[in-house]
């Protein structure tokens, strides 16, 4: 069938700079650049271009620019270019339009409508370079009251304490499974988490046996609907367990890792035959109620001798506050909320772009509900999706999060440019692929360093902003919405967020 699709990108090559080194040709996994030796010329097959910018970055003379293709349909507010292209693609294939990464639609980003406070005159600001500033965060269930007895002059905690994890910074790498991303990308996250004193999340793809001794103490291991790679050793090797109910990018639907990606080592780790599709069902088939969830939570706690906190991850949906309350009452120590802009390796476009609610609203609603019910101390809240910078982190904490999950930001640090083609398995940056030629592009030394730098850079910025507010520990900011003001928000939005408008 002759395609009616317009090219998405145009490749511009400056002839006064191109030296025909052919690096672009070798680096493009989509065959966009082709060298013709008869003419000593580079040709561009633009219809194949996904706009990943690998060629533009690798070009030693900066001869390449990849831009949106100027070809336009007649202007139409209803029928945008995306709608045209997706419909035509569907008419040509008859399938579901797939995509990768997070929601890219123009839903309101509440981070950009919230501003932070700073100390002036009546209370002093703090210089984090001269005075101590604490980012240390403990996640897990806290006791209802703290009873302390003095014995022989020594204080002793009488209250029953629950397992808690100590994070050096309130930023955790979110769930990205081995199989979806390459071994090197996965291990880079693990190494960076260990080096920075935080956690990485295995996703639902298991934790390779050889990594357990070294990285287990920084691992969050998931128990998802496919139950890939779950056994007693897997659970016990980790610092924290997570039951994955939903994912922000695709609430209500399962996952599908194509068989071509299930190479030997991935198959062993996931405990499935090599080359078979790894299908995660939409629901957990043993969870149809809060009571069922409770049974799984306690089964996991039993399997790990009540030594590890158990998290339940849900996508942010309409009644998320009530759901979170149920999760806490079911016995979870941590509630992870994944919002509308959460990423994915593959999701139907229609689901990714239209299902779920923004995390900012969900987070504020959950925090408020748990406080109102007097059970906020029984869990920590991990907020996920759409965290792009340190100020997003600090605003999330002020809205009530204990810590945040970052996924997309971590991938971008390693090289990702959000071309949204993760599901093709041809990631030009060597992240979301198992192709042995492409995975070499991720040098684990470099990518680990980039991730460590990201965490340390953000942590410095968070300290600066905390200091500006006159706060010397991130604990003091948690749920402190007095430090936030809304700009350009309507009353219902301010009410849901629980913040005042700027100037109030």
């Amino acid at each position, binding site marked *: 069938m002759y395609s009616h699709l317009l090219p998405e990108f145009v490749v511009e090559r400056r002839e*006064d*700079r191109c*030296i*025909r*080194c*052919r*690096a672009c040709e*070798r*680096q493009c996994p989509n065959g966009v650049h082709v060298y013709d030796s008869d003419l000593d010329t580079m040709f561009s097959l633009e219809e194949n271009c996904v706009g990943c910018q690998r060629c533009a970055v*690798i070009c*030693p*003379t900066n001869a390449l620019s990849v831009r949106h293709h100027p070809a336009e349909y007649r202007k139409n507010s209803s029928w945008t270019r995306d709608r045209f292209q997706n419909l035509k693609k569907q008419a040509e294939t008859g399938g579901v339009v797939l995509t990768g990464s997070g929601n890219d639609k123009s839903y309101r980003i509440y981070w950009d409508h919230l501003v932070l406070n700073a100390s002036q005159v009546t209370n002093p600001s703090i210089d984090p370079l001269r005075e101590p500033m604490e980012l240390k965060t403990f996640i897990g269930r806290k006791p209802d009251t703290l009873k302390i007895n003095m014995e022989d002059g020594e204080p002793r905690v009488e209250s029953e304490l629950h397992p808690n994890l100590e994070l050096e910074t309130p930023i955790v790498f979110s769930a990205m499974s081995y199989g979806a991303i390459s071994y090197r990308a996965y291990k880079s996250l693990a190494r960076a988490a260990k080096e920075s004193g935080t956690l990485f999340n295995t996703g639902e793809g298991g934790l390779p046996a050889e990594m357990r001794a070294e990285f287990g103490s920084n691992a969050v291991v998931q128990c998802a609907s496919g139950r890939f790679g779950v056994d007693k050793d897997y659970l016990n090797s980790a610092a924290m367990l997570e039951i994955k109910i939903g994912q922000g990018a695709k609430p209500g639907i399962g996952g599908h890792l194509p068989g071509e990606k299930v190479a030997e080592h991935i198959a062993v780790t996931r405990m499935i035959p090599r080359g078979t599709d790894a299908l995660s069902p939409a629901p957990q088939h043993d969870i149809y109620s809060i009571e069922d969830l409770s049974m799984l939570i306690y089964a996991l706690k039993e399997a790990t001798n009540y030594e590890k906190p158990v998290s339940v991850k849900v996508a942010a949906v309409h009644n998320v506050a009530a759901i979170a309350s149920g999760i806490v009452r079911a016995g979870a120590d941590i509630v992870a909320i994944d919002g509308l802009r959460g990423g994915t390796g593959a999701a139907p476009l229609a689901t990714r772009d239209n299902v779920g609610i923004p995390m900012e609203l969900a987070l504020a609603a959950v925090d408020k509900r748990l406080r109102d019910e007097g059970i906020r101390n029984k869990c920590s809240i991990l907020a996920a999706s759409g965290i792009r910078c340190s100020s997003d982190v600090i605003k999330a904490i002020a809205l009530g999060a204990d810590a945040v999950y970052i996924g997309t930001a971590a991938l971008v640090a390693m090289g990702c440019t959000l071309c949204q083609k993760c599901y093709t398995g041809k990631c030009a940056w*060597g992240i979301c692929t198992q*192709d*042995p*030629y492409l995975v*070499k*592009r991720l*040098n684990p*030394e*470099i990518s680990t360093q980039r991730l460590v730098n990201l965490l340390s850079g953000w942590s410095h910025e968070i300290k600066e902003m905390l200091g500006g507010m006159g706060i010397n520990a991130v604990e003091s900011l948690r749920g402190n919405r007095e430090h936030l003001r809304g700009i350009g928000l309507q009353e219902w939005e301010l009410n849901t967020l629980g913040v005042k408008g700027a100037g109030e």
Partner: protein
Amino acid sequence: MGKIQVKPEVCIGCHLCEIWCQVAHSKSKNIIKTFLYEKTIPMSRVVVEENLPLTFPMQCRHCQEPDCVSACISGALIKDSASGKVIHDPSKCVGCFSCVMACPYGNIFVNEKTREIVKCDLCEGLDEPYCVSHCPNEALVYVSDD
């Protein structure tokens, strides 16, 4: 003297080491000028060997007991005892290419036009070998002896 260490596990096969080697041995040391404006483009002293997915660059290993030096009939190739480098002196070279045949790595190259050999000189006179400093994935590392 140090050595250029190759890490095939992170070599991405872009061949930019070859390009920057040519720049390093050009008059201007400017990449665009070298390829688009200079009269003669120097040959690369490094070659990326490929058997996909495997790729790795190879250049003169500056061997402890270099076969090329033993094979040289005119004393144009010497093993410099002070620096440890295998050095080629074009003024003494007669173009017999015995060294080309003797090199077990195939890292001495023939310039067909001038009938001269070229080989890696570890970027004599530059701060760091260009192939190392310009590798986009740090697949080439200069390991100093001291």
